[in-house]
């Protein structure tokens, strides 16, 4: 699905990604962990074209996307959420998700202005269905900027799913949530985000990684230091060492 080789991304003299090799198989759900500043979010930004890679190769389903613009890449079937929450604050909750259906194969260009009634009704129902699933149905017509943080995170998830991505990138989907809210988010991701697609999840909450991921990849200083099934990797000495003094993986 996604193959990355010797990927380097520099910001000035700092190498945020320092020759990363990384790959995800179709249908796999991969956890991405590592201390703050280890390059996790940078990797998402490079994969989605927000930051072009300094060097190295980047292939999505065999296609080279290293030099592609973000809108081209996401139209190949990639969607993401953001660690620092990005929503369209002055659009309603419904509009946030509805507008994300843009450029999907079933939305013709002319429907930008005039939509065929039955097709459009089906798509609006799909949006309402996503809002129902994510527990946002009763906030449907509120401006998104007024939602509390957990609702905004769920809105980001609904918006990403509305694009029907084949590769979904989730950047700390439970960041800033209480344990109960986190548990709800884990259920959402397990039930509606992971089935039928490839997922990469960045998360500091190791319980989530254990619950959701088939495989875990650990980054430190822009390199991969460990990879494998969650139970084995989370016991690895190098992983524990990378986290020591910053936060302990067990209770983070």
């Amino acid at each position, binding site marked *: 699905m996604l193959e990355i080789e010797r990927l380097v991304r520099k910001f000035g003299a700092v190498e945020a990604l320092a020759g990363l090799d990384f790959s995800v198989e179709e249908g796999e759900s991969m956890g991405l962990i590592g201390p703050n500043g280890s390059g996790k979010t940078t990797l998402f930004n490079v994969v989605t074209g*927000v930051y072009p890679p300094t060097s190295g190769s980047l292939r999505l389903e065999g296609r080279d996307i290293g030099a592609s613009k973000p809108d081209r890449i996401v139209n190949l079937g990639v969607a993401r959420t953001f660690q620092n929450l990005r929503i369209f604050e002055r*659009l309603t909750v419904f509009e946030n998700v509805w507008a994300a259906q*843009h450029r999907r194969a079933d939305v013709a260009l002319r429907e*930008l202005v005039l939509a065929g009634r039955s097709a459009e009704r089906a798509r609006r129902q799909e949006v309402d269905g996503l809002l129902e699933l994510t527990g946002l149905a009763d906030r449907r017509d509120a401006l998104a900027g007024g939602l509390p943080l957990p609702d905004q995170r769920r809105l980001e998830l609904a918006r990403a799913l509305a694009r029907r991505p084949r590769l979904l990138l989730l950047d700390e989907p439970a960041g800033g949530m209480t344990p109960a809210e986190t548990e709800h988010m884990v259920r959402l991701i397990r039930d509606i985000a992971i089935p039928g697609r490839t997922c990469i999840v960045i998360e500091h909450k190791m319980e989530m990684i254990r619950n959701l991921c088939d495989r875990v990849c650990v980054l430190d200083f822009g390199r991969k230091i460990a990879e494998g099934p969650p139970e084995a990797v989370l016991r690895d000495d190098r992983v524990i060492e990378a986290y020591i003094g910053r936060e302990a993986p067990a209770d983070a």
Partner: protein
Amino acid sequence: MDDHLVGVLSNIGMISFIALSAYLLLIVGEISFGQQAFFAISAYASGIATAMWGWDFWPGLAWGTAVAAAAAVLVGIPTLRIRGLYFSIATLAFAEMVRLVFEVFKYQVEIDGEMVGPDGSDGFRDIRYIFENDITAVEYMLMIYGLLAAVLCAFFLLERSRLGSIFRMIGQDPVLAEMQGIDVTAYKILALGLAGLVAGIGGGLYAHLTTFVEPKIFNVMLGVHSLAYGLIGGLGTAFGPLIGVAIDIGFLESIRAISGYRMIAFGGLVAVLLIFRPRGLLDEAAVNWIRLRLRRRHA
């Protein structure tokens, strides 16, 4: 109907077009100080078509509008790659360039023993189609408002369509919009073209109402005003800029008691609103509140 009133209403109608033009760009997050350029281009082009080439009014207006829209797209291709303040300055520079070109632009033909056509800084006289065809001031006012109603309908359709949401997404967070698969630059060029078209309709109407245009009318103040209209009236709905125009021209300019203080009052109003309602009276929150109220009443 009182002549003064007809004049004021006609002015409100025409200026509304350029206000809507600037509003559309504010929606996609760009501040243009140059929409008066497209107003001017259409005023000249449509005037040339009816007064010099003998075209009818509607084809002349359509031609002027098309030229303005084409000019806007051509300007958009290089300038929309630059963003924010740099785009604003580029539009300002372009508009001044257009005005200075009209200062030296001479293109005249002899009609019935008289020279007709743009004559540099002396302006372009005798765009007399309306008078020659016995269209009264009231009829012309109704034509202006008919077109304005059509453009407003188009705006409301746009706001409800995916395209409208895409424009607002780009205005709020262009990077996030790209993450929804949107080619931001292409849509901005489309918005600029549509904005040029809307300004062009106003420019063509203006030239035929006043029968005389000169370059200095299309100075920066016209562009600044058209921006301010949206910021006063609100960026949540196309009614916003119209409210801005009505407040400025219908109220401040037309009440003779405060005529000398118009600019002071206008500037003060903009300053107060920028502090208390940075996105205008009818901002997105206000519009959404009203929309929900209306829906609840129907339900």
